[in-house]
């Protein structure tokens, strides 16, 4: 726990603001990732990856990989239905009718669900699990296809102060480490946004070889063949939600899906274009 810089009160680990004076205290996930023991464990894994690369004679590749990883971004894969909803949801014309009842967007009936969802997040996030939005770490703007064919790339500025990264997607991470409520996750598998390259190096360094090229990096970081069972990526955990302004670009194919889907996509592209967001065909 930390103390508030303004009033000196103790800020609980699960809170983003001081409960006494309301001063922002940094988001709980970032504070947790920046704990000394967490930073130290991550640093050890990061260094170990470098040692291994040096021994394996691919240090320069690792350095290049490390450098590239500092340019990674968060992507969220969605289907065209969500994409259309999300892009139109930014505009009053649509929300006037589509979110007709004020305060209805998060329903009280979800409380029970939140409790269970917290259990899924379990030892990872404690009581703030409900606040986390999930994305994947990507180098080329592509994301895990098993979640949808269109990847929304988030602007760095929209998340850098509130995002952390986790070794795998949290579902697999919890399974793999048999995390149950009360059991702490292993140290060194989570990092703040600025340290995301270290986590990626620690996780993936051993998969590099002297023949690995820059073109291989994106697939190494995020491997997706369309099946959730085999998808492998570093998960981005963003505290809180965000709006359409947080989107930098959307990547996907204009030729897939039904005619209705393509009609929706045409509208999506127009909304993106009007808002100055890029559409990347791919």
């Amino acid at each position, binding site marked *: 726990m930390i103390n508030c810089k303004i009033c000196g009160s103790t800020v609980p680990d699960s809170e983003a603001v001081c409960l006494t004076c309301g001063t922002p205290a940094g988001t709980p996930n970032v504070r947790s990732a920046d704990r000394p023991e967490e930073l130290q464990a991550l640093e050890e894994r990061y260094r170990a990856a470098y040692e291994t690369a040096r021994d394996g004679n691919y240090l320069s590749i690792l350095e290049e990989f490390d450098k590239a990883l500092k340019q990674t971004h968060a992507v*969220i*894969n*969605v*289907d065209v*239905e*969500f994409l*259309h*909803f*999300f892009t*139109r*949801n930014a*505009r*009053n*014309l*649509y*929300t*006037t*009718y*589509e*979110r*007709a*009842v*004020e*305060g*209805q*967007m*998060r*329903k*009280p*009936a*979800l409380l*029970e*669900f939140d409790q*269970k*969802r917290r259990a*899924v*997040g379990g030892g990872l996030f404690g009581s703030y699990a409900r606040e*986390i*939005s*999930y*994305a*994947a770490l990507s180098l080329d703007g592509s994301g*895990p296809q098993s*979640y949808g064919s269109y990847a929304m790339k988030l602007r760095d500025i929209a998340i850098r102060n509130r995002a952390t990264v986790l070794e795998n*997607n*949290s*579902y697999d991470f919890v399974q793999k480490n048999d995390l149950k409520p009360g059991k702490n996750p292993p140290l060194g598998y989570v990092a703040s946004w600025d340290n995301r390259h270290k986590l990626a190096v620690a996780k993936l360094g051993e998969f590099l070889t002297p023949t690995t090229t820059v073109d291989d990096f994106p697939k190494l970081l995020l491997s997706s063949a369309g099946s*959730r069972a085999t998808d492998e990526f570093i*998960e981005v955990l963003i505290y809180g*939600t965000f709006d359409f302004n947080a989107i930098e670009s959307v990547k996907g194919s204009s030729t897939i899906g039904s005619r*209705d889907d393509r*009609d929706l996509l*045409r*509208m999506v592209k*127009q*909304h993106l274009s*009007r808002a100055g967001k890029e559409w990347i065909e791919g």
Partner: protein
Amino acid sequence: MIQQAYVSGQLGRVIYTKDDRYFLLQIERLEEPVECRPMDLSTFFNYGAEITTFSGAQLDLAQLKNQLITQRQAYRALAMVISGLDEELDQESRQTAIEAAESLFRDAPTLRFVRARMLSRPLPAEADIEVARDIAIRLEATSVGFLYQNALDCGQAICLVYETWLEAAPEYFASQEERVEGERLLLELGVFADMAQALTRRDATALSSIIITYGQHPELNSKLKQSVLILNDLRTRLSNKWDFPSTGREDHKRKRRASGDTEHVADDGDPVHEILARFRQRREHPRSRTLSADEAKEKVDHQIEAIGKLIRHGNIGRADRFLRDLINFHVEHSEREHLGMSLCALSKVAIDTSAFQLAEQMVNYALMLGIDDVVISNTQAETFKAMGRFDNALAVYRETIERFPNNEVARSGYAEVLKATGRFDDALAVYRETIERFPNDEVARNGYAEVLKATGRFDDALAAYEEAMARFPNNEVARNGYADVLKAMGRFDDALAVYQETIERFPNNEVARNGYAEVLKATGRFDDALAVYRETIERFPNNEVARSGYAEVLKATGRFDDALAAYEEAMARFPNDEVARNGYAEVLKATGRFDDALAVYRETIERFPNNEVARSGYASVLMLMNRFAEVPALLSGTRLSSKGDWIAYHIVAMSYLRSGEIDEAIRRLDYGFHNNPWITDRFYFASALALAKIKKRQFDEVLEVLPTNVTGLDVFQKQTRLVLVGHSQAALGMKEEAAETLAQLEQAANPRVINLKEAITRRYDLKRQSSASLSPDEEELLEAKIQEEEFFLALAA
């Protein structure tokens, strides 16, 4: 077992919990739920999509799939309607969106969902609605275009309803959560939309009817206990803020004021106003004495007769010109009071021939004369009543009764309007009081008996008529009323005897002749009925009722071409005969010429906007064309007071049945069956309710809804009942009973009934010819045919 589920139509996804694990169901992969990952959860819950929560022991995957499909379709239609308004989108995308919405609107609940949203919130400034409407019109996307037009027309009212809600809602709820839930319910049911439409139509009665319509809605009642209080309070607040048309009395007073203000009246462009204003200043323009009073009267009578004839023949333009001559003649040769009476006499002719605008114009002229005459007031009230403006009529009658407490006509007129709006107890009280004060008032006695009949108190009605007949042995109206009650009781022979006696005693009584023919028709003696009608038409060529009655019998016996010809003749002779026009459209409908029927109804509605029968008929044809999504919009907001309102309510309920929303149809039909104040009209709700139960395969309940041993049914009602009962008995395996029931249809002349009898017999093998057993495909075909024919039959009822 599924424990809890969250459905989002906007996202096309469901998340549900099963065995404490989370699964995701997507619209494009309905058969393959996948276990949720955290990213699924955050995209579902974190970005503001509307979500509906479901829980309960009965929850299953099939239900969730249905919910998802329904909600997704509704939200997709909403998004497409809004995209049509979005000027950020190019023309092609807006067209695509509007076309998609139009196609989705074929589903009635989808249309209702979108309408409820669009008419509940003020149009955002960036909505490009005029262009959207034009695109819809160009694409012939009529439902979407109609909705845009409604949103435009109701703009001011929508703002008022919304502002009023925001202002009042904090007083209704203890917490923000309750307020949100209450608002959601009212919005989604379409309460706000209906209120906005009622305000826009300046229809205070429709606004009040919302309380009745929604006050008994099961979902609203169970989830929002104080719903009636809220609806009432909203109604009051809105009524105080909205500029409803004056009650008629204010019109009346305004006209009176205007009549004293020459400059003002000369400004409104009608030269007659100036003439009338000058006429009021009689001293300045003394009456000419070139004609004696008798001579003047004789000339006036001639003019009135000529104008009346023109009105009856629908030559309104010419009648209007002659009317000016008549007014000028009166100004020159008589007194204001005489002109007032001439105008009232002609106004009544105009009412009888449905030339309401002209009737109102003449009443207004009479009011401008500045004479305080009870006849003018009564005529004004009568005009309002004929135009369906019941509130105005009541207001005028009330004021007239206050000013002329000894006027019997005003009292009976007042009671008559109360009856027309279903306020039977009030009507009876007024009649009783009138009879006490004026024991010799025949009209009040007959009116009293008429109300008793309408409420199903047949014995009391008979007693009241008997008393009237004893007191006034020559009162033909009482005799005909008496016979009509006997008919309603199923005592057809007694009714025939009374009519026969009346015809013998009063050979020129056209009503008795038509009543007699009606009973013959009701008992299936079609040839006799036709003969009586033919004779009546020959004796009284201007009797519109006989002509329509004649055509109606031809239709009932399947002689559709003859019926059309008879109606055509009636329409040519009486261009303002709405009954003939509606009958004509009904025959076109019965012969499957739906487009022609629609055209006739449309023209009738344009010419006679208050004709509820035409509106309901139009809606019923739309329904048969499977354009049932348009039906509630056409008839929505209708008040539930007059006989016509209940017919419209029935048609809307049938549209739910047609569109497959059987539970909603049953709810409405059951309500009509138990609450229609016109007891004798409940049979059509009963038939439709039985049909809905058949659709739900609740055959045993059909036998409860439709007992066959009731009296008072005419041959058509009885045949409909026998078909539905026979079908249900057969489906329940009661083959002998079913065969017996259907055997009672041996004499049926209606081709639809004959076909149905054969189809049911074949479908359930009632002749027990096991060799003729049906393949599943044949069974399905027969079921479909039976359903279609039964629907037609119940609709015709």
